């Protein structure tokens, strides 16, 4: 009995802690972390932000969790449904409350996260906790609302496909992945979006499986008092029942050979080439992954030799960038270039390959590596000046890892990366077997 008590005390101590803001950590604010009995994790970050608060409800579910055939796009669709209200606060009343307090309320969905966020005046914190806790526990919507919202989703899809990069992304994922749900974009396959009005029952199960306290993290940043806020959180969220049922996301088997494809864009655009490599899941302690992020910047970023050659000196590309995202599962590490002349596309592709070969065989200049590290540090520090920016910067890390410890781990690991690590990362990830190459061309010239 005594042992159990001790155990409980320890858990309490551990789960109500101030992370010390010590010198070797990069994140400049103190964080209060507490986990409720139902599994709801709460992160409070008081900061000097006269009268303003950012409030994020982070659901650790995204389009990655859409494992059932025909249901792609549902995580994002569900994000819209969450604004339809409850019996206590129906959609129109929710809108009217949010409006009456002059809050800015919105949400976003990606592969790994669905986040609902508000920014508002500190004096309205209790009101916000009331309406947010209510919709997460008691969402209620009728078939007609559900079907109307499906129309808005299709409208959003139509808006997006006028952007060639969206069309390209759709195609690259479809070719690169066979079984993993990253095969579809967060919007979903068009055929599934069209069928959304028939998915009412499925939407209910979606809510019951994923919108549970043990799959949600509350992040509150700004002009808040920890004691008072935690008391309100407990009052409003303690009754929420746990019951998260994780999706069984099938891992993508290793790719064994290069894949290629083409896609036509309905409008007019310069051709765009996307060279994508199977990467690795976000892990701030994985030196290879961390080195790959830096390599992406060194090889393809705005000051890389390749960018200077193709964009500034020879002016053969109109845009070029590397994208090495942090994701829960294996993402695509991509190099994307908008090429001025269609016949030059293969040559641009070969320039990218040559750059990779150089990084695989030659250690990068130590000063350049130091520059990238410094840039990442200041890039991070300069963008923590409002509650909204702090919360927005942390949200994805929280969705991926459940907390924010990974931020300090990541920057510590970045500091340790050497030129040899960069070379090893280039060899490990940027191989032909991991590669998918897709070229987008405009249908009208």
């Amino acid at each position, binding site marked *: 009995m005594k042992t159990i008590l001790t155990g409980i005390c320890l858990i309490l101590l551990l789960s109500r802690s101030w992370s010390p803001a010590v010198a070797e950590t990069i994140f400049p604010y103190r964080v209060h972390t507490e986990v409720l009995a139902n599994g709801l994790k709460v992160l409070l970050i008081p900061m000097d932000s006269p009268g303003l608060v950012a409030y994020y409800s982070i659901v650790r579910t995204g389009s990655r969790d859409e494992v059932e055939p025909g249901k792609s796009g549902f995580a994002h669709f569900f994000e819209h449904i969450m604004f339809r209200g409850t019996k206590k606060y129906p959609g129109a009343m929710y809108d009217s409350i949010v409006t009456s307090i002059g809050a800015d309320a919105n949400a976003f969905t990606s592969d790994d996260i669905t986040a609902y966020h508000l920014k508002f005046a500190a004096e309205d914190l209790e009101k916000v906790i009331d309406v947010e806790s209510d919709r997460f526990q008691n969402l209620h919507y009728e078939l007609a609302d559900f079907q109307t919202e499906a129309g808005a989703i299709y409208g959003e899809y139509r808006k997006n496909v006028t952007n060639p990069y969206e069309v390209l992304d759709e195609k690259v994922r479809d070719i690169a992945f066979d079984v993993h749900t990253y095969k579809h974009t967060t919007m979903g396959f068009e055929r599934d979006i069209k069928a959304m009005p028939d998915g009412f029952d499925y939407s209910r199960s979606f809510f019951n499986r994923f919108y549970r306290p043990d799959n949600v993290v509350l992040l509150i940043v700004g002009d808040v008092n920890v004691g008072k806020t935690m008391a309100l959180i407990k009052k409003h969220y303690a009754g929420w029942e746990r019951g998260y049922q994780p999706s069984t996301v099938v891992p993508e088997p290793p790719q064994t050979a290069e894949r290629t494809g083409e896609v036509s864009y309905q409008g007019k655009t310069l051709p765009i080439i996307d060279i994508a490599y199977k990467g690795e899941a976000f892990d701030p302690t994985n030196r290879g992954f961390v080195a790959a992020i830096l390599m992406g910047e060194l090889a393809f970023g705005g000051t890389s030799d390749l960018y200077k050659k193709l964009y500034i000196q020879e002016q053969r590309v109109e845009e070029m960038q590397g994208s090495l995202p942090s994701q829960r599962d294996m993402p695509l590490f991509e190099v994307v270039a908008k090429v001025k002349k269609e016949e030059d596309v293969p040559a641009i592709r070969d320039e990218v390959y040559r750059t990779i070969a150089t990084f695989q065989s030659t250690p990068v200049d130590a000063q350049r590596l130091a520059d990238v590290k410094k840039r990442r540090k200041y890039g991070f520090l300069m963008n923590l000046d409002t509650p909204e920016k702090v919360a927005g910067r942390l949200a994805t890390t929280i969705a991926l890892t459940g907390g924010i410890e990974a931020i300090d781990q990541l920057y510590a690991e970045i500091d340790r990366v050497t030129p040899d690590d960069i070379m090893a990362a280039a060899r490990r990830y940027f191989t032909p077997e991991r590669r998918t190459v897709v070229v987008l061309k405009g249908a*009208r010239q």
Partner: protein
Amino acid sequence: MKTLTVTLALALIVGASTLSMGGVSMKADNVVQLRVKNDPTISFRIWFKVGSQNDPQGKEGLSEITAAMLTDASTLRNSYEQIIDSLYPLAAGYDATTSAEMTVVYGRVHKDNLKEYYPLFIDAITAPAFKQSDLDRIKSQVLSNLENTLRYSSDEELGKAVLYNSIFDGTAYGHITSGTVTSVRSITIDDIRSFYRKYFTKDNLVIGLGGGYDTTLVASLRSGLAALPAGKPAALAPPRPASVKGFNVTIVEKDAPATAISMGFPIDLLRGSKDWYALAIANSWLGEHRNSSSHLYQVIREKRGLNYGDYSYIENFPRGGMRNVPPQNVSRRKQIFEIWIRPVPLEAGHFALRAALREFKAVVEKGMTKDEFTLTRNFLRKYVLHYAPTTMERLGYAIDDRFYGLQGSHLAMFRSMVGTLTRADVNKAIRRYWQFGNMQIAVITKDAKGLREALVNDSPSPITYKTPKPEAIMEEDREIAVFPVKVRPENVRIVPVTEVFR
């Protein structure tokens, strides 16, 4: 030593003449300061009193390209590659925005890195190299934006650009900042040199400085910018667009996947006046940007699911798809009232146009109800807080205050006016500045002739839904479908997309 004394003396003079207003120091000279002691960064905004209105005829786009030749190109000291290399580790940069009347070179840096950043920033403004290869690259980008992005992959921005161009046709505001394909192609290094010498002068600028800077930086900036050419260009009179009579429709025909609509008319109202704040309340209710509180959003998106959003404006709001709150430093002396309908299904274009105009007519005729007024007032009083949470944004507002000749802060005035204005004030402003029946309309769609036919004949435009809708909505739909928006045949213009910005 001598230099140091002068610098200190200057700093003292500046300090003495400072009059603090809500954190922003306004002075009679050309410096706007916003010191925020615990901000670890420093924000710069150098405002030149020049914009696309100053583009010479046939050289439209010159002001935007000249600004880009300062911030995205080589200087006499450094090549463009050297510049981006130097800025890179600082995670800092600078850029320029050009609008009809303002060009602002802005940048932000962590104070740890000010020493390395500052000379690059000053050089960009005072010592541009104006190299041909930089111009080729920048022109190619602008042309691609006109010929590809705007014409073919951003129907929303295309609609807005066509609307502004039609309303201000024949005036100095009558072209977008990027100009036209022909004019941009004709721009030479000599054009840029002479435009720079005429407008980017030390007598034609206002220095904006914000964040955790040391006060000596003000004097350094002054002396640094003193290297600019001298001269004060003559001010242009504000444009006087022709008044709109009836519904005038420009249909841009293209193989569009959906129909995008923008419409509006000029208004004689600028921020600072009581009526502006009164009309801002009405406009927020009708169409607060990217907010579900927007009434148009409720009618078209929320109830009917026709699109992604529907908003209205009483001030210019470029790149609305990219931001949630109003931008800074796009001030102008002539504004329009504007309604923005995001893309709707092709077959619902005429219906959505009617739905928006019907709501607008109702508010013009009946004004705001007591409940609508109270809700919107409460909303705005706090929502305005989100317009400028960062030092850089607040500095932008302070510069705009200077543009409009305001004694205090527009945002502070906004919040206080919202608290004191009455419903009668708002409804009076609606009657004075809004009217139904005279409107420029820009539509981007596929079947232009079909739409012209329908508009000219005022044909019914019923829509169907894939899923059942409540009877109240079906009933309202029947009224919308025949809501009169009659357009005279000579007031409809069809333009192939390849002709736009030519």
